């Protein structure tokens, strides 16, 4: 007989599993955590290199000299903006036309689901202006985009000036094989999303935008620029996009190569590059940068206009000019030369960027960790729910006991109703699962739907109403176990089998969710796994219930969000006080809901419809009677 069919051997295996389960889980968890922490150290990182043969090296002669011209444009732009109070569309159109581009504009409007307190807007309408530089000797089949987002808070006037100056310079060159679109958007991300949706002829976020009059071919790559000062001390690059999607690593490698060629100071996550990577200090610095990237990627927010391009399979990065107190400053000409070099190299592309990695983590600009090397970390962590589920299955099937043994007068294997005492009864589980899922659904739908009702009955603004409803439903979920038990029928299969079956289902549910999430957003999956998995594995109704309850609350999705906010600010060396942290948390909640409605960010639905019900199941397990 086979190993698993023979009841003696099966019993032995089952006993072995039960004995080794806890040590295996502990080892697995530690392995996962240490593997993740070791990602910044040498055997797991590689040096970056440009994989795309067509882009080659930085072999190009940059001849851009329009730095002063750019600053003149910037001053005009600022003056015009102050005059009109919004984006000076007529002046932009006129200037772009004088530079030699084909100019078009697009108007858009959107009513937010509730007023946005951070940007102080509710009903947004604006105009995007873009000019197309047609390739002189090629068919307009492909294009590149240079986008500058302009909003009332951040004018990006110098970026607009540089865009216009670069457009004038590019117009006089004959070596462009792709069209170049120079885009200035209003209300930063909203305008960019409106333009992208109209360009690709889709409507996925409910934006009302007018149709585009002029198009330029399939977009191969895009660079977003944000500059707010006449001189910069460094250029910061942002790669994390919507839902944690990342651009092709070659685009970042290209930027890094030009930073080195022009001797520009380039930073990632706002951190300078450490000089010595082999040393411990360098690796720890890399670990800090890596953690910042993980936190930003997990949040799923588009950290710049580039984040919205990625969804349309357009590789994009955002470059931000930072003006700090360092002595050495770079002028607009240096930044312009870097952009010129990048665009000339992107011009040489024959296909979309695809040779390099799409999934990676960056300890620094010159080093990366590829997906093959970081996935084992989450693999180790997801092994634990699997092991625990197997243990519960074994216990429920009483596979560690043979058919001849009796468990005692109270635990006979054949119950009075003739039912077999082994196995998992699924019918009693339907109620807790349905109720948890319904609570999740309420958490997803009610805050936005009920904001007006809440605002009427309580003296709060709509945005606060949404956040407070969110928190209220979240906390109300904690009271569920008391009501669930009235619905749950008695379990005929032994006192423990009810909660064990529920825990089994919950563990599998958690493992599947986290596994699926980590496939497209490793950072989010890992962050949730590292907090929830140990608490989920430990939860049981017996033992120190209060301790388990505290642990479970601490790892609930909301608390993880709060914790990661504190960690993020700590890593940026700008730590928060408790009050500040709480305020930031509330605004993060509002932003999360808004991002979901405005751009289709998935963090809010994932947490409310997926992880929160799962967490509630564990909470039910903990308070099982």
């Amino acid at each position, binding site marked *: 007989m086979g190993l698993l069919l023979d009841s003696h051997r099966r019993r032995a295996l089952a006993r072995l599993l039960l004995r080794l389960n806890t040590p295996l889980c502990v080892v697995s968890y530690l392995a996962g955590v240490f593997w993740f922490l070791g990602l910044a150290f040498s055997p797991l990182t590689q040096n970056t290199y440009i994989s795309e*043969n*067509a882009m*080659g090296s930085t*072999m*190009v*002669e940059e001849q851009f000299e329009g730095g002063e011209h750019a600053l003149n444009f910037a001053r005009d732009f600022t003056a015009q903006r102050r005059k009109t109070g919004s984006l000076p569309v007529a002046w932009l159109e006129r200037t772009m036309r004088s530079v030699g581009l084909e100019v078009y504009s697009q108007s858009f409007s959107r009513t937010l689901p509730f007023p946005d307190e951070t940007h102080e807007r509710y009903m947004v309408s604006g105009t995007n202006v873009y000019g197309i530089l047609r*390739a*002189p*000797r*090629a068919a307009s089949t492909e294009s590149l985009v240079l986008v500058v987002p302009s909003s009332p808070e951040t004018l990006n006037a110098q970026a607009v000036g540089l865009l216009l100056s670069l457009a004038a310079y590019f117009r006089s*060159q*004959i*070596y*462009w*094989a792709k069209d170049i679109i120079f885009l200035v958007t209003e209300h930063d991300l909203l305008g960019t999303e409106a333009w992208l949706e109209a360009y690709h002829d889709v409507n996925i976020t409910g934006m009302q935008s007018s149709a585009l009059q002029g198009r330029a071919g399939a977009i191969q790559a895009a660079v977003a620029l944000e500059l707010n000062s006449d001189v910069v001390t460094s250029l910061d690059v942002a790669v994390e996009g919507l839902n944690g999607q990342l651009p092709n690593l070659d685009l970042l490698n290209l930027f890094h190569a030009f930073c080195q060629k022009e001797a520009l100071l380039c930073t990632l996550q706002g951190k300078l590059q450490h000089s010595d990577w082999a040393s411990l200090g360098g690796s720890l610095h890399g670990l800090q940068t890596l953690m910042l990237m993980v936190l930003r990627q997990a949040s799923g927010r588009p950290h710049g206009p580039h984040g919205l391009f990625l969804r349309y399979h357009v590789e994009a990065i955002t470059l931000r000019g930072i003006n700090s107190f360092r002595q050495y400053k770079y002028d607009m000409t240096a930044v312009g030369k870097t952009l010129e070099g990048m665009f*000339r*190299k992107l*011009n*040489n592309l*024959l296909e979309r960027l695809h040779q390099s990695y799409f999934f990676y983590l960056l300890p620094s600009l010159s080093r990366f960790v590829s997906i093959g090397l970081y996935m084992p970390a989450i693999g180790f962590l997801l092994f634990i729910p699997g092991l625990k589920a197997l243990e519960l299955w074994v216990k429920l099937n009483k596979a560690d006991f043979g058919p001849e043994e009796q468990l005692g007068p109270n635990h006979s294997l054949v119950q009075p109703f003739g039912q077999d005492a082994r196995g998992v009864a699924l019918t009693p589980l339907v109620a807790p699962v349905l109720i948890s899922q319904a609570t999740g659904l309420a958490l997803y739908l009610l805050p936005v739907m009920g904001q007006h009702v809440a605002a009427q009955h309580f003296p709060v603004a709509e945005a606060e109403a949404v956040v407070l409803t969110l928190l209220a439903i979240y906390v109300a979920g904690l009271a569920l176990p008391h009501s669930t038990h009235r619905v749950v029928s008695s379990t005929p299969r032994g006192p423990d089998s009810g909660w064990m079956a529920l825990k089994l289902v919950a563990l599998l549910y958690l493992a599947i969710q986290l596994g699926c999430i980590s496939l497209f957003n490793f950072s989010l999956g890992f962050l949730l796994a590292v907090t929830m998995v140990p608490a989920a594995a430990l939860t049981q109704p017996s033992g120190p219930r209060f301790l388990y309850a505290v642990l479970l609350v601490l790892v609930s999705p909301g608390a993880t969000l709060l914790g990661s906010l504190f960690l993020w600010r700590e890593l940026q060396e700008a730590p928060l006080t408790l009050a500040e942290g709480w305020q930031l948390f509330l605004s993060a909640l509002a932003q999360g809901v808004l991002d979901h409605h405005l751009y289709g960010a998935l963090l809010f639905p994932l947490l409310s419809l997926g992880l929160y019900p799962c967490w509630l199941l564990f909470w039910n397990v903990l308070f099982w009677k």
Partner: protein
Amino acid sequence: EAGPGSLSRCLAYLTSFPSPSVWQDQAEQLFKSGHTNNWAVLVCTSRFWFNYRHVANTLSVYRSVKRLGIPDSHIVLMLADDMACNPRNPKPATVFSHKNMELNVYGDDVEVDYRSYEVTVENFLRVLTGRVPPSAPRSKRLLSDDRSNVLIYMTGHGGNGFLKFQDSEEITNVELADAFEQMWQKRRYHEMLFIIDTCQGASMYERFYSPNVMALASSQVGEDSLSHQPDLAIGVHLMDRYTFYVLEFLEEIHPASQANMNDLFQVCPKSLCVSTPGHRTDLFQRNPQNVLITDFFGSVRKVELTTETVSLKPDLSSMGYRYLYLTLFLNNWVASGE
């Protein structure tokens, strides 16, 4: 056979000149090479802008053979992509071989016979073996005969035993050797010089087995052929090292040059080329020392005026039966008077 060309050459030799013995040597030399016309098949197999240097390589050799006398009607030029009119070319209608735009090998009288997607393995083999469809125009045919010296130059990306055409197919060294054998059996060449500038180029001539073939390659098996002349204004490498130095060597050659194949073998030593160029002469009947560069790269019509009569001695060992017949006939003709 004794056609009008060879007859006129013989007549030219028969007019006066100071020393008959010197003239006998020169006359013997006339028949030493044994070929009466020259053909060149120049192939660039790579497309895409970053392979600019392969087009520049081929055009450099084209420029040299044209300068040394082979007319366009005897050159089959195959270029897989158009670099001169590529939208990315900042200097349109030019292809430079030296950085800082010193030498434009595109010129204004380039005739490309097979262009763009017509450069395929099938078309190349059809050109070599003569199996072109009846509709193929004259410019696309290699109309060589058994008195033709054929120069074949190939460049592109290659590996151990193959050469890549257009990023979609390959020609192997076995196929190439078999094509040359077909050419030999159909009497489509008298002597052939095969030059290849790719990575691991020496693997392409390993399998040749037809007589009268001499081969040169830019690198040995396991070595890469490196590029040269990075030009920042254009943004690509302009030439490959081996062909760059071959071009420099050829620029020194003029139609009356007496430089021989041994000089060509010395071009681009490892110190300049980084790879080790190789050559193969075992299938060739003549000593490379006696093979002039212009035997393959030029189309030399040597005309010498003499006022003396020259009696041509038949030399059975070196000339072969055909020439014996010709010299006997001519001797009789001269002796019988005009």
